[in-house]
């Protein structure tokens, strides 16, 4: 399921523009890291990564990141089966893929 582009609600906030952009630019790296951790079955580190995305996403104006990361963190905490875990991780990655920042910063 492909997402509509996700934009920060603070995209035009002069205090925020620059750091929103920095945050978005670093997301592909975080996405790669999430998948690597899942493949290596390093669930503790995956939970920390999900926790951090949950805490930061909404603050940068990307509420969908916080929502999907919260579901992944919760799943890890509850210890769901591998296929459900993969789905939660996939959902978060798709959101990260959909994040878009305007070019004219």
């Amino acid at each position, binding site marked *: 399921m492909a997402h509509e582009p996700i934009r920060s609600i603070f995209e035009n906030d002069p*205090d925020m523009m620059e750091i929103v952009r920095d945050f978005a630019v670093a997301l592909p790296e975080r996405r790669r890291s999430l998948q690597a951790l899942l493949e290596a079955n390093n669930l503790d580190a995956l939970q920390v990564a999900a926790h951090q995305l949950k805490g930061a996403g909404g603050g*940068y104006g990307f509420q969908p990141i916080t929502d999907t990361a919260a579901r992944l963190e919760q799943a890890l905490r509850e210890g769901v089966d591998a296929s459900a875990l993969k789905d939660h991780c996939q959902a978060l990655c798709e959101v990260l893929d959909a994040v878009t920042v305007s070019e004219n910063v």
Partner: protein
Amino acid sequence: MNPEIRTPTRILVIDDSEPIHALIKARLQPEGLEVFSELDGEAGIERATTDLPDLILLDVDMPELDGFEVCRHLKNTPATRDIPIIFLTGTASTDSKVRGLDMGAIDYVTKPFDQVELRARVRAGLRTKQLQDILEHQSFLDALTGLWNRAYLDRRMEGEINIASRYDRPLGIALVDVDRFKNLNDTYGHLLGDVVLQGIARVMQDSARSSDTVARYGGEEFAILIPQADLDSTAQVAERVRQSIESHSFEVRGSNIGVTVSVGVVCTAEFVGELSPENLLNHADRALYASKDAGRNCTHLNVRGKIRPLEPGES
């Protein structure tokens, strides 16, 4: 102890996520706040202890030393005990909020935080701290004279004695007691006795250096702490105070009366190895009583336990 106006206000962020550092900085800097940050609990404690920020935003969920442990450590360390802490919590669980508040945190903010809420909570935390500082300041003032009180003198003496011994810089102490104050009270009444005490406080404050600490030590007894002063300079300050009071005329019920004081002086330079506030005050007290015995309105020095009058022309 003197409340310093220090600008700008400095906020320490302790959080294991760098995006959170950048975010808080972006949100608080426009408020005129200076923000610096550390990525783990241990570095955070170290930074808090050396830089003494005005407020700390502390993440609860951190690997190794978590927020609660950091908080406990900061609250158990005298230097950092009074720095207000606001917890940043990722979970909305009541349990962790209550635990944080019970540990001495002033407030909490749930991540992801709303910027308006973050700013408001930080402002409120800083305001509470400021009020605490004012209250603490007031609790160290003598209500009648506006000088520092005995509690402050004790606390300050301890600090000054430490500095004196660490840097080998002598500290002078002068005890000043109003002569025949009881007669004055009996003759003119307590209200006018109070007016005289207030007048003496003003004269003492005016004749002391700005780095000196002038305190009301008891009823009609005052003390002056004189940092970086050897016995001679301490005696000089003490004698200047004594003479200023002697030459001052206090207006009581439209007529002018003269008041004198007796003074006892010691200096830490003369008492190596016995540097407690109690000891020094006792030594000064012995010199003071020698001044009383010698007929009042004079100054005596306690030099290594030997009491002698301040010779004319010595200061």
